[in-house]
């Protein structure tokens, strides 16, 4: 494939195309996640889930239409259409500017962080892996954390601008929770980057380099960091659940005690933006976890993409290896999103004081101890 055509385009066209691509990929993916969530909750509860809706003019198609109907995809389209077309009231008692701004702010970090997350790699003619990423910045993981941390503003502002008590409580809870778990999350990935940045290297925080360092030859080199650093992975996982406001940490919108939490006063399209943003966070979070701890696009521990492409005799083709890598990565992300949902429909919600105790008194000391232990171990290994 001739890629020079694309790179000859003026930069603003390319940037626009990339932006459109992000929206065109993430929105349907998030929507599919919402339907997957409904289906998985149904299956876990012994129900079939949404399986009825079908537009009459598609009923004649054999096989495909009934399968899509059983999977609830037409229900998804109907729900999406409903959110766009139903009345979108703004309650009289809210601060209008921030009330409208909050759902828009929710989308910004949700759609921006994906830009620095590599979603695959292809092997060029020399056999070197080249990342498939919108912006391959050196500060990858920090950029994800930095932009992701801006997501808290949408929740705080939504809670504050709604000017009523349940959203307010949800907003206060969200801000405290997100800031608390950011600490443990950042500390938990430090051992990974200590290990990646061997002395003498140029120093990198790029997610691509993390993935490549999980496919080195040898027993230690080929091991995924999830196996090598289980405690880091565990802390990151728990913090990820808290950061994405998923069960058992969905304090900001715990419907049992806060009606709907920060989005109680929202409806229609603005509410659906919050909804999509939550799933986008989940997708990006799963992607980062897969990159850091589950080997990214490498199929198995000790089995790298290069080896598999060699076995399949596609190593010479950038397109095929790129597609293989992207599929492997997406498969892992989908499996991880399934895990998110599986946990959601298994565990009850924590109490708020339990969330704070867990974050500050358990996870934070654990992550600091974990960091010190791995720093010492890595120092000893380097010395030896």
């Amino acid at each position, binding site marked *: 494939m001739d890629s020079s055509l694309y790179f000859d385009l003026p930069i603003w066209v390319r940037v626009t195309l990339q932006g459109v691509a992000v929206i065109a990929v993430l929105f349907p993916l998030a929507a599919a996640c919402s339907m997957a969530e409904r289906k998985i909750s149904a299956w876990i509860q012994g129900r079939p889930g949404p399986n009825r809706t079908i537009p009459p003019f598609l009923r004649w198609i054999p096989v495909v239409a009934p399968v899509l109907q059983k999977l609830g995809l037409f229900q998804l389209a109907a729900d999406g259409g409903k959110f766009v077309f139903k009345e979108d009231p703004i309650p009289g008692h809210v601060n209008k500017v*921030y009330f409208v701004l909050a759902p828009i702010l929710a989308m910004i970090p949700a759609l921006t962080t994906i830009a620095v997350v590599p979603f695959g790699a292809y092997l060029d003619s020399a056999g070197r892996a080249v990342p498939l990423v919108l912006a391959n*910045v*050196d*500060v990858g993981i*920090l*950029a994800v*954390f*930095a*932009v992701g*941390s*801006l997501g*808290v*503003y949408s929740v*705080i*502002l939504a*809670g*504050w601008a709604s000017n009523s008590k349940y959203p*307010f409580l949800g*907003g*206060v809870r969200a*801000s*405290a929770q*997100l*800031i608390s778990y*950011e600490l443990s999350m950042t500390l938990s990935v430090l051992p990974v980057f200590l290990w990646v940045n061997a002395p003498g290297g*140029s*120093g*990198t*925080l790029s997610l691509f380099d993390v993935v490549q360092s999980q496919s080195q030859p040898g027993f230690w080199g080929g091991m995924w960091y999830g196996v090598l650093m289980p405690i880091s992975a565990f802390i990151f996982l728990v913090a990820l659940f808290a950061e994405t406001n998923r069960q058992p940490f969905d304090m900001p919108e715990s419907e049992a005690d806060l009606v709907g939490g920060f989005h109680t006063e929202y409806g229609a399209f603005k509410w659906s933006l919050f909804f999509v943003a939550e799933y986008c966070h989940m997708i990006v979070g799963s992607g980062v976890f897969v990159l850091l701890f589950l080997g990214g696009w490498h199929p198995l521990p000790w089995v790298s993409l290069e080896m598999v492409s060699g076995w399949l005799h596609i190593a010479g083709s950038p397109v095929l290896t790129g597609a293989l890598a992207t599929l492997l990565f997406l498969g892992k992300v989908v499996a991880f999103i399934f895990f998110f949902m599986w946990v959601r429909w298994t565990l009850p919600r924590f109490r708020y004081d339990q969330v704070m105790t867990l974050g500050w008194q358990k996870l934070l000391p654990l992550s600091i101890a974990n960091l010190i232990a791995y720093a010492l171990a890595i120092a000893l290994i380097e010395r030896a």
Partner: protein
Amino acid sequence: MADLLFYVLGGVTLGTAALTVLSRNAVNSAMFFLLSLLATAGLFVLLDAYLLAVLLVLVYAGAVVALFLFIIMLLDMQGGVRPPFTRATIAAAVAATGLLTVGVLSFVKRAQLSAAPVSPDLPVVGATLKSYAAQLFTTYLLPVQVVGFLLLIAMLGVIVLSKRFEGLEDIK
């Protein structure tokens, strides 16, 4: 292109900084402060100091302003009546402005800024992780330690001030 972006970002930084001070609503102030920080991060990006930009967003925009907002919401500060200027506040304002002016002028007049590195082998401080970290742990080790210590003292002070100690027994 870069020049235009610089002026736009600089204007946004200054304008939102002024609005931060002038807003009557505390939440507006915090949001303008956030915008100001983001524009500053944009300026860092123009200087190729990606790491500094990301750190600024991560620490200040992501955590500090969120905490400000959190506190504003908890205290439910709604602007309200401002206390009038007194002789003491005017004197303090004049003194502070004077000190700031002297500081900026001395920085402009006396600072010896080394010329920007021309060789591509020698990256700007703060451009890459490694150069930034190396500077932090060699040249600027003392300031970093001093600032860290200052923060620790401030934190201890807040704990002492906010916790009600009944007697000496509680402090132990």
